[in-house]
């Protein structure tokens, strides 16, 4: 199974390179002979943005709960844990905004515990036409059964395939400082793309974290 995924990954990489080569062939790059590396990178990113890959899937897990509240604030005042802001866009494979998406987000608290009796650290967001979401939460805790920190996502939108996935953190000690090498450890993470870089910053004396996690949905 994993081998198939690796092959797919290589194919996707190839197709990106092919895309760039196509651009060169069509003269898009030739037009500016003295193009800098930054410009080239920008062009690459633009090409990537124009055709993002569908976000890889993950398992739903046993602790999904229906009917969560539509709130961007998961962290209550005084909650233990490192404050975390997660933001992103919901797009289709052409990079266009997907309106009317519904985004269920749930995670364990700082101590690694899911609230199954109430709705702490659970939200059902409705990003609307802008297709952007943002939540204020804490870095999820570790727990023994699934030792990498993660946030669960269930995203549905009219005309698109429902996506079940999870967000992981490159700063997680589980990846031992090298997510490229260790994301396959323990068979926990389905795809490297789900391990996101974490921005660490300080705000009035408190360490804070932020992660950008864009979601790309396939057409139904």
């Amino acid at each position: 199974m994993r081998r198939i995924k690796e092959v797919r990954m290589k194919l996707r990489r190839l197709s990106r390179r092919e895309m760039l080569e196509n651009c060169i062939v069509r003269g898009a790059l030739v037009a500016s002979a003295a193009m800098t590396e930054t410009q080239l990178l920008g062009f690459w990113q633009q090409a990537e943005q124009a055709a993002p890959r569908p976000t890889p899937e993950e398992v739903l897990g046993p602790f999904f709960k229906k009917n969560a509240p539509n709130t961007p604030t998961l962290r209550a005042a005084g909650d233990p844990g490192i404050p975390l802001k997660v933001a992103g866009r919901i797009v289709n494979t052409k990079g266009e905004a997907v309106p009317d998406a519904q985004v269920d987000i749930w995670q364990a608290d700082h101590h690694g515990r899911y609230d199954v009796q109430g709705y702490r650290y659970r939200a059902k967001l409705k990003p609307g036409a802008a297709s952007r979401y943002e939540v204020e939460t804490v870095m999820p805790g570790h727990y023994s059964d699934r030792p990498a920190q993660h946030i669960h996502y269930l995203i549905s939108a009219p005309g698109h395939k429902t996506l079940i996935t999870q967000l992981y953190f490159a700063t997680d000690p589980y990846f031992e400082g090298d997510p490229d090498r260790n994301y396959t450890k323990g068979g926990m993470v389905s795809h490297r793309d789900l391990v996101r870089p974490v921005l660490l910053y300080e705000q009035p004396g408190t360490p804070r974290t932020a992660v950008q996690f864009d979601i790309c949905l396939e057409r139904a």
Partner: protein
Amino acid sequence: MPGKDRVLAPDQRVRQICFIARGELVAGLAADGRVLAWNATTGQQAPAVPTEAGTRLLSFAGDGQVFATGGVPSGPRLRRFGSEAPAREFPALAGEASRLVLSADGSTLALSSRDKAVRVLDVSTGRLRPAVRGGIGGTMAMALSPDGRTLVLADADTNLRAWSTREGELLRVMEDLPVSTFAAAFSPDGKTFVSAGVDRKVSFWDTRTWKLQRQMEGQPEMIAALALSPDGRFLVTGGFDDISSRNPVSILVRAAGSGAVVRRIPSPSAIVDAAFSPDGTCFATTNRGQGISIWDAG
């Protein structure tokens, strides 16, 4: 059955247990994939039933003499105690099997796989029954009615789906529960379906209307195992603490009708499985540690 609590097979980790041979033996799946059985009174081990290496799934028919095994690439098998060769070999199914259940009458076998497919086999012909489907999350638990005609799938999307296995018709989607179900069973008369899971409640459903009849509270932990006595009067439940499956939990024996607690037994770690003896006087449980505990039903 002598009415004294005891532990069998203290050096074995056993799952998917069942009383067989009219209650004389307790059988289960050992960690190495063999199906082992012990005398329920003396604890003496009976000859093991050979299985394919890597067997991970086991389900018994009503009397326990016939059982199904699976979770290996070569496909599920139907076996009989006292017989070395499988009674029936079914073709390999696509996808890695995650759960397997044999109906009490031995007529029907249902398998779920990690790719979220569910397949139903007619045991006598070995043919696939019409396709049935769970939800988007994958099957967390499933149960077949005693006659094998109805299959209920509990999905991680928290919904329960009742299917007719002969027609492949979706009878009802039960959307009442906000959280997942981990354990499910039909009453021996087939009139009631019982489910339990994350919400720590036991839910009773009428299998004619598929309406939620009532819910029983009182379990301190999430419920992962449930067993109904053969006369349907008593219910055993056990599960796991939501911080660690190594934390102690309670086993509850309750009257299925009134919910009155008949017995409350402490367990040092999470309960994995439970089964009643055919005469209903005792039941067996396994936990995350080793051994099979036999308890007086109270």
